[in-house]
Every structure is written in structure tokens, then in C-alpha cells.
């Protein structure tokens, strides 16, 4: 399924914490025709980017690289949107 892939650094001081995890999964869910998975290492384990429970279980800290892969009709689009969200530091308003 991994037709599209990217890896992005998490720059938030508290890592991929509650608010960003909610934003990430909400965005992933808007792409109904894409399967999106994330992992902390290129070799996996890969988990469903639409599950906030699983994203939080990653416990990804600051400086971790989030590997993202996506497939399906909206795969390319989903990957671009998710990678951009992480690069924008999840639009966190505080520093």
C-alpha cells in the first residue's frame, strides 16, 4: 500500500502530545479514500494514522522522526496534507 511516503521531524517541545494527536487523526479521517499509516522507524511497526489511541501510544517525543505512508485514491493528497501539518508544528499557537 505504501505508494507514497515521507518522514518529518516532530519539533513540538512536548512531542506528539494530546492536541496535535487529535489534529493529526482528524485530518487523516478527512481522507476517506486513503489508508494512512505512521511509524517511528522506517521498518515499522506501522500504525493507523486515523486512530488517536494508537497515535498516543507511540509516545513520540520532540525530535522523533514521524514516517508517514499512504495508499488509495487519495493517498498522495493525504500524505501531503499530513506531512505539512507536522511541518507546521500542528499550527500550535504558543511557541
Amino acid at each position, binding site marked *: 500500500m505504501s505508494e507514497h511516503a515521507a518522514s518529518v521531524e516532530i519539533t513540538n517541545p512536548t512531542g506528539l*502530545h494530546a492536541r496535535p494527536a487529535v489534529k493529526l487523526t482528524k485530518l487523516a479521517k478527512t481522507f476517506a479514500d486513503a489508508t494512512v499509516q505512521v511509524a517511528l522507524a522506517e521498518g515499522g511497526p506501522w500504525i493507523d494514522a486515523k486512530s*488517536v489511541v494508537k497515535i498516543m501510544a507511540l*509516545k513520540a517525543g520532540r525530535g522523533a522522526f514521524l514516517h508517514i505512508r499512504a495508499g488509495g485514491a487519495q493517498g498522495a493528497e493525504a500524505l501531503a496534507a499530513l506531512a505539512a501539518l507536522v511541518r507546521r508544528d500542528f499550527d500550535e499557537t*504558543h*511557541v
Partner: protein
Amino acid sequence: MSSVFDGQPAAPGIAIGPLVRLAQGRSVERAAGTAEQERAALTDAIEAAVADLAALAEQAGGDAADILEFQIAMLEDDALRDPALSAIAAGTAADAAWAETMAVQVAEYEAAEDAYFRARAADLRDLGERVLRRLLGTTDDDTFPPGAVVLAHDLTPSRFLAADWRGGGIALAAGSKASHVAMLARARGVPMVVGLGAIDADGHARAALDGATGRLWLSPGADDETMLATLSAEALEAGRAAAGLLHRPAATAGGQRILVQINVADPSDLEGLDPALCDGIGLTRTELLFPAGGGLPDEGTQYEVYRRIVVWADGRPVTIRTLDAGGDKPIAGLTVDGESNPFLGVRGVRLSLARPEVLAVQLRALARAAVHGTLKIMVPMVTVPEELEAVRALLDAALSDLAGRGVPAARPALGMMVEVPAAALAIERFEAAFFSIGSNDLTQYVTASARDIDAVAALADVRNPAVLRLIAEVAAHGERIGREVSLCGDAAGDPAIVPALLKAGLTSLSMAPNTVAAVKTAIARYE
């Protein structure tokens, strides 16, 4: 009998009132139905809990809404309920299945290495209990008298939000300063102490707590109550006076404008702070960027941190100090080990010039971040002009290197810290764009008294006339040549010392963010 317990301060403030103990756990039994009925009971309870949370979030708004939004997203995720549903399919009752599933989740968060993720266990417990209450048909028993001091094992965010805390306080046996409920308590001014450990409160009906020191009194004595009530009234009055000044530019009673800047060590220090609080950042420490375990942060990592601080400042000047390691701030693999007197050894700019490759990375990152606002570079521990000039040459090299690679960059103003007496006494020799007096080191060098040796700490007083005279001379030099002179040591954040600094002619101070209110009040009172 009065008893005193010490925990960790989580939210400042004083509360005195009736003691209320919140029970944990549940004792209600429910009759289990068929697997199909149990499955429906659990999904209905989750749906109802989500609706409760949504209503609560709408009411609360802001940070509280974000916290509840997270709980809603977790509850709506099938991954959370799947283990419970399969236990139900195997014949377990809905409440037992859910309780077991949540216990596993909570335990996983509690085992996390990272304090942030560990603190999320309380959120999981919160949403778990909410579903369970829906399933069992019980309600929150949060009816305690106004002004109560509530003692509990831990407290969940939704339980916090459901109660009226005016005049009251919270004492927790467990809990963490990093928990969502501690954040909420700080934001709403509810005094809170955490980490008290198991407390036997039998026979006590009244309690007092001081959230600033982390102390809890059960059956406080009349003396304790009087002392705390006085403290509380003073804090209230100071708070009222300061609230009016906090987000306004500071000026003395005589109308002299004083720049009030803040000291930061990490972008997270700025979280929740309104930039209107200050006239800029007078000191950004960069030592924390360098991990204790060794290794050096690369240019991109540093750039990102500097950029975020500059963006936060929203046009206000941001002064960033180049690495000030050594002395009492060793960094493995970088500072020199085993010096006989590290405070007089290879520290500050001396270390940076001994390791120019490390400084070069930092200067490139700073020049790149300078395009996003007003960034100024401050060099610590300068003793002779040649050191400042050597840094300037490295900055020139960094800028031409970036230009050669086509990387956007801007030249930051280059200033120096004045903390070595040799620099303070001959300040006119230094071609610096600005001066910032590091009063901690200047005081200990002028009085030959280390702050960390108790027996001589009293001698290390910034109000020693010799230290104040040096400060006044540096301030006068700046005034003559039209360059800013600021002061960024602990003295700037001490309202008892601020008048002496203003008298010495300083018009710019930089301090820890949590002292700004008190300092602005002291400035406003200065004639």
C-alpha cells in the same frame, strides 16, 4: 492535634476551610445481561459520555475545551473500546470489561518514560470513570461546601471542571505538576498541592494549604490560620495592584519609562505567556539546547528553536546569549573537566573561542533566525575587547557562508554581557552594540564570594556599594554613547532590590516571567 504535610507546589495560593475527602473507586453492582445487551450498554454509555464531554467543552472553552476534546477523540476511537467489546463477546459483563480495558490503558501511560505522557494517565482514568458512571447510573458526588479544601488521591480534569472552587483548594496524595488538572488549577487560580503521599485524615474536619510552598495543614492551629490569612490577603492585594500593570509598559512614579524584559531558557517557558507582558526578551539561555548526555544540537534544530522564540516576541527584540557553559554549567564532552576553579576557568566566550566549530554552528542558526524579527546576540564572560572582536569575525564568516549557500540570513546586533570586573571597570574599551549586566557573576567576582557557598552567600550581595557603583558607571557609559544597558541577573526580578538598580541609573531590566508583576509594581512605586 494539628498535623503538617509537605508535598509539591502545583498551583500557588492559599486556602483555608472545611476538609472534604473525595473517595476513589466504585461500589455499585449492576446485573449483567446477554452479550448483545452488554455490548449495547457499553456503546450507549460511551455515546452518553461523549455527549457529556461535548457539553462540558462548550461551557468551558479555551484550554479546558482542548483537554476535553482529546478525551472525546479517545472515546470515539474504536481502538479504545475493541478490547472491551471482545471481552463482552466472551461473556464478561460490560462494566467489568470496560474497567479492565481502561486499567490496562492507564497502566501503559503510567509506565511511560516521558513525564508528559505519564501525566495523561489521569485523562484516561477520567474518561474511563465517566463511561463507568454512565454504565452504572451513578453521578458525580461533587457537592462540597464552598471554600472547602479537598483531599483526594488524584483528581480528574472533568471532575475539576464540574466543581466550584472559589475560595477552595486541592490537596492530592498522587498527581503531578505536569497534569492537565494542575494546568487548569494554575490557569484558574485554584491553590493546589500534589504528591503528598498517603495521608491519614481521620478525625480532622478543617484544613489549610499553601500552594506556593506545597504545604498542607490538617486541623491547623489558630496561629497557622492567622499567618496564612495574612499572607493570603497580602497576595490578593499585590495581585490586584499588579493585574492593572501587568500588560502595560512600566514607568516609575516620576514617569521615567523602564524597559521590562524576560529571561527564558526554553521555548516552552513562553507557553501561555502574552508578549504584551514585556518589552522583549533580555536573555535567552541556550545551555538547555545542549543535551546533558552529550552531543551537540545541529544548525537546523537550533534555528527552529530561535525562530519560534523570535516569532513569539512579535516584533519585540529578542536577545539570545551564545553558549554559556562551564562554571556551574558543565556540558559533557564540551567543557573542561577537573579545573581547580571552574568559575575562573574556561567558561562562556572563553570556551566558545576554544571550540570555534561549535560557536560557528550557533552563529549560523542565529543569523538565519534573525530574518524573522529583531534578534540580538549577546556574548557572555567577555574580559577583553579581542574576545568580542573574535566573535564578530566568526559572525562575519557565518554570514558569508550562508550567503554563499543562498540561505536567507540577517546580521544580528552584537552585544556583550558585563559580568567580569575587568570589563565593567574599562567598559569604554568595548565596541559592543549593547551591554547587559550579569549581576550574579559580577557580584560574586567583585565580592570574591561564591553564591553557592552558604557561609559566604550573604557577602555576595548586589547591593554592596562597590557592585552598585560599577553598575552605575556602566549605565552612565551607555547613556553617554547612546547604547542600551540592561541587567539580567536574579537582582532584576527581586522587587526589594529593583529600587537600588533604578537609583544606579538602569532603565532596562530582564527577569524571570513569574516575577514581572511584582517588579512592575516596585517600579511604579519608585519615586
